[in-house]
């Protein structure tokens, strides 16, 4: 699957399930050249203590470039004194562009008091069923919006729409994860209301989504008891990044050789701070704690927004 996940020449598709409108977007590496008004510019410091904007009196044969999300673009290079070869100290995080866009999403959420959550799991662990139940149970109480990520089809988006929440489906094509730009695009169609909860269902994959920040407040890992106790040890990056681990499908425990104690121990080994919730999205067992967490975090989000934005 992921041999293609750099998606050269591939297009992600954003489908607004309210209007049926579809937009096609170039993937990350192809589409960034035009972001002239955002904060994901690069900043070129020419010389160790000079700003690019204050002239180009160069005494060094090195060009120092600092790429950072909060810096502004400068003009081009003046030639270094030493002809032939020059060294540019790039010192840039490889995921700087995604991280800068994620920071922009995060600021956008903060300004609107939106609680954004990134739901990740292996395929089939029950993300969509958890969303459906949450939407139905909290209807009229919490404003919920959903961004659905899948390689293909609007099946999950349709399920969520039928459950009663506004939803935008992102199809990543060959891509194995959502990225910050896809979220930014989806938000322009979804237009979540201020003070809402935005649930982002990532592509079912416990590997790649761990590396791509979307601007969310927290990552929620859904860990199905049908997955086996050792799932956390096999996918340590994702379990380490989780704020909550939802142990899902606990209604099936009587039929499985699954040790809850062992599974919880494995999560704890990687992530001692994680909140672990035992739940069944099918029969509703244990959902009370999940809803309480959502209510508490949304209240905190609303009261902290004025400080953060």
């Amino acid at each position, binding site marked *: 699957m992921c041999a293609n996940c*750099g998606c050269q020449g591939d297009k992600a598709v954003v489908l607004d399930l309210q209007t049926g409108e579809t937009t096609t977007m170039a993937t990350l590496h192809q589409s960034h050249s035009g972001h002239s008004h955002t904060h994901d510019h690069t900043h070129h410091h020419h010389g160790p203590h000079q700003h690019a904007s204050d002239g180009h009196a160069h005494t060094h044969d090195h060009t120092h470039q600092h790429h950072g999300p909060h810096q502004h673009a400068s003009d081009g290079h003046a030639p270094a004194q030493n002809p032939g070869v020059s060294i540019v100290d*790039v010192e840039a995080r490889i995921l*700087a562009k995604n991280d800068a866009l994620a920071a922009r999403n995060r600021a956008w959420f903060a300004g609107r008091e939106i609680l954004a959550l990134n739901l990740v799991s292996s395929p089939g662990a029950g993300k969509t069923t958890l969303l459906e139940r949450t939407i139905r149970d909290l209807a009229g109480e919490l404003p919920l919006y959903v961004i659905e990520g899948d390689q293909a089809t609007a099946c999950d988006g349709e399920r969520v729409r039928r459950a009663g929440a506004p939803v935008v489906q992102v199809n990543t094509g060959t891509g194995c994860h959502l990225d910050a730009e896809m979220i930014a695009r989806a938000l322009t169609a979804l237009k979540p209301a201020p003070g809402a909860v935005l649930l982002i269902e990532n592509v079912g994959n416990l590997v790649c989504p761990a590396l791509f920040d979307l601007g969310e407040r927290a990552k929620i890992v859904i860990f199905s008891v049908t997955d086996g106790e050792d799932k956390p040890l096999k996918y340590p990056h994702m379990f380490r990044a989780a704020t909550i681990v939802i142990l899902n499908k606990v209604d099936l425990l009587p039929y499985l050789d699954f040790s809850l104690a062992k599974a919880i121990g494995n999560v704890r080994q990687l992530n001692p701070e994680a909140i672990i919730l035992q739940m069944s999205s099918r029969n509703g067992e244990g959902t009370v704690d999940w809803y309480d967490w959502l209510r508490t975090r949304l209240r905190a989000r609303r009261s902290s927004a004025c400080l953060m934005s």
Partner: protein
Amino acid sequence: MHELSITWNIFELVAEAAKGRKVNRIIVEIGELSGVTADSVAFWFPEVARGTEVAEASLEIRKISALARCEACSAEFPTTSMLTACPCGSFRLKRLRGEELIIKSIELEEVP
């Protein structure tokens, strides 16, 4: 799994910094707990750079070994995997090194 994506990001940042000049060498740091396989990045790089001013550049990947400090006993120790615990038994660790994903520098041909 996501290494092609990562390689595209490297290529983009390098091409941006090079501004059309020929790139001879790229130095990248990849931490052993970064979640990115260095060999796979090396595999994808020529494919991504083909036909560009970066195509002939050599990609030097420096693998950074991982180090953590125990929040229980303050010992510093190497963590060869995400599952490495402190010798004292604690899993509460502050990771000091080993999650890097950085382009350090590039070497360019200057236009005469």
